C-alpha cells in the first residue's frame, strides 16, 4: 500500500516506515489481522478490540496523504461486499442514464409541443377557441336578447393591385345578439381576364370582435370572378348572446365589419393566425 504513495522508497526504509507509522492502513490491517488469527486470546474481549480499533479512526492519515487521491477502488476489501458495491454502482449508472434521458425527453417534448398543438387544432377544428362544439348546438338554442339593438355597418376595401369593384349592398343593419343575420356584398370584375381574389375581415371595436361569429361567408378562400362578372357575396353571421352580459360591452352600440380583398397569386397564402 505504501508503495503507491512513496514510489521511490527503498525496501528497508519502506519496512521501517510501515512499522513505525501508526496511521498507515497497512499497519492497521495488520493490527486487525492480529485479532482475526484463530486462537488469539489477547488483551481482552471483543469490546476492547473494537475500542482499540476505534482509536485508529481518530488517528486518520495525515493531510499530505489525503491530498493525493488514489484511483477509485471499492471501499471495502471484503469480496462479497465488493460485488454488492459493483452492483450498486451499476444500478446508479442505470438510474442516472434514465434520469438524463427523461430530462432530454422533456426538452424535446417542449419543442415538439408547438407543431403538435397546431396539428391538434387543425384536426379537431378548434382553431384557437378553447370550447369545442360551440357552433351548431349553440345556434340552435340561443335566445335573442331583444332589448339590445346593435347597429352593424359594413365596409369594403380592395387592395391596390386588385381591380375589382367591391362594395356592400347595405350600409348598415340593426341586429340583436342571438339572432342570425344575413348581409350582402357585391363584387364585379371589370377586366377581361379572370381574376382570383381572397379576402379577410376585420371587426371594430376589437373586443366586440370576439362575439362576432360568422356562420358562413366568403372569406379566406379563393374566389374566382370571370371577366365582366358580377356576383353577390353573402355573409351569414350572428352576435353571441353573451355580448349582452359583458360589462365591457355596455357602451358598444356600433360594430363595423370590414372586408378587404386581395389578389390571390400563385402560392400566396393569407397569414391566418394559427393556421400555416
Amino acid at each position, binding site marked *: 500500500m505504501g508503495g503507491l504513495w512513496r514510489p521511490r522508497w527503498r525496501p528497508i526504509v519502506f519496512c521501517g516506515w510501515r512499522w513505525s507509522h501508526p496511521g498507515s492502513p497497512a499497519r492497521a490491517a495488520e493490527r486487525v489481522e492480529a485479532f482475526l488469527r484463530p486462537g488469539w486470546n489477547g488483551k481482552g474481549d471483543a469490546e476492547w478490540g473494537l475500542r482499540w480499533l476505534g482509536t485508529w479512526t481518530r488517528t486518520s492519515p495525515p493531510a499530505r496523504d489525503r491530498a493525493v487521491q488514489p484511483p477509485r477502488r471499492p471501499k471495502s476489501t471484503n469480496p462479497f461486499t465488493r460485488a454488492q458495491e459493483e452492483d450498486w454502482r451499476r444500478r446508479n449508472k442505470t438510474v442516472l442514464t434514465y434520469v438524463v434521458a427523461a430530462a432530454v425527453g422533456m426538452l424535446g417534448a417542449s419543442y415538439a409541443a408547438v407543431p403538435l398543438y397546431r396539428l391538434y387544432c387543425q384536426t379537431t377544428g378548434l382553431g384557437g377557441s378553447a370550447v369545442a362544439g360551440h357552433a351548431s348546438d349553440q345556434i340552435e338554442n340561443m335566445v335573442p336578447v331583444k332589448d339590445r339593438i346593435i347597429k352593424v355597418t359594413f365596409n369594403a376595401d380592395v387592395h391596390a393591385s386588385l381591380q375589382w369593384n367591391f362594395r356592400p349592398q347595405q350600409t348598415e343593419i340593426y341586429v*340583436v345578439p342571438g339572432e342570425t343575420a344575413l348581409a350582402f356584398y357585391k363584387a364585379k370584375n371589370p377586366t377581361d381576364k379572370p381574376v382570383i381574389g381572397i379576402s379577410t375581415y376585420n371587426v371594430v371595436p376589437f373586443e366586440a370582435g370576439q362575439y362576432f361569429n360568422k356562420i358562413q361567408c*366568403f372569406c379566406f378562400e379563393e374566389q374566382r370572378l370571370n371577366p365582366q362578372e358580377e356576383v353577390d*357575396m353573402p355573409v351569414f353571421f350572428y352576435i353571441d348572446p353573451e355580448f349582452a352580459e359583458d360589462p365591457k360591452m355596455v357602451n358598444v352600440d356600433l360594430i363595423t365589419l370590414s372586408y378587404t380583398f386581395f389578389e390571390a397569386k400563385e402560392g400566396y397564402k393569407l397569414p391566418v393566425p394559427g393556421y400555416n
Partner: protein
Amino acid sequence: MSTAMNFGTKSFQPRPPDKGSFPLDHFGECKSFKEKFMKCLRDNNFENALCRNQSKEYLECRMNRQLMAQEPLEKLGFRDLINGKSEKK
C-alpha cells in the same frame, strides 16, 4: 388584420367561419331571393329582425341549388320561423 403594432394590447384575431365559405353564385340563381331580402331591408329601415323570413328563403334557395351545404333550419337559428309563420311578421 389589425395593424396596431402595440405590444400587449389586444388585437383582432380573425376567425374562419364556422361552416366555411359560400360558393359563389356565378349564375345568379338566387338573385331574386336576394332582391326580395334587400327590398324588405330597405322598407323596414334595415332592421334584420323583420326580414328574417326573406333571409330564410334565400338560404333555402342556396341549399336547393347546391350552393350551400344542407343544414336543418334550426341549426341556422330559424327555429321560431319553422313552426309557424305567425311568430314574426
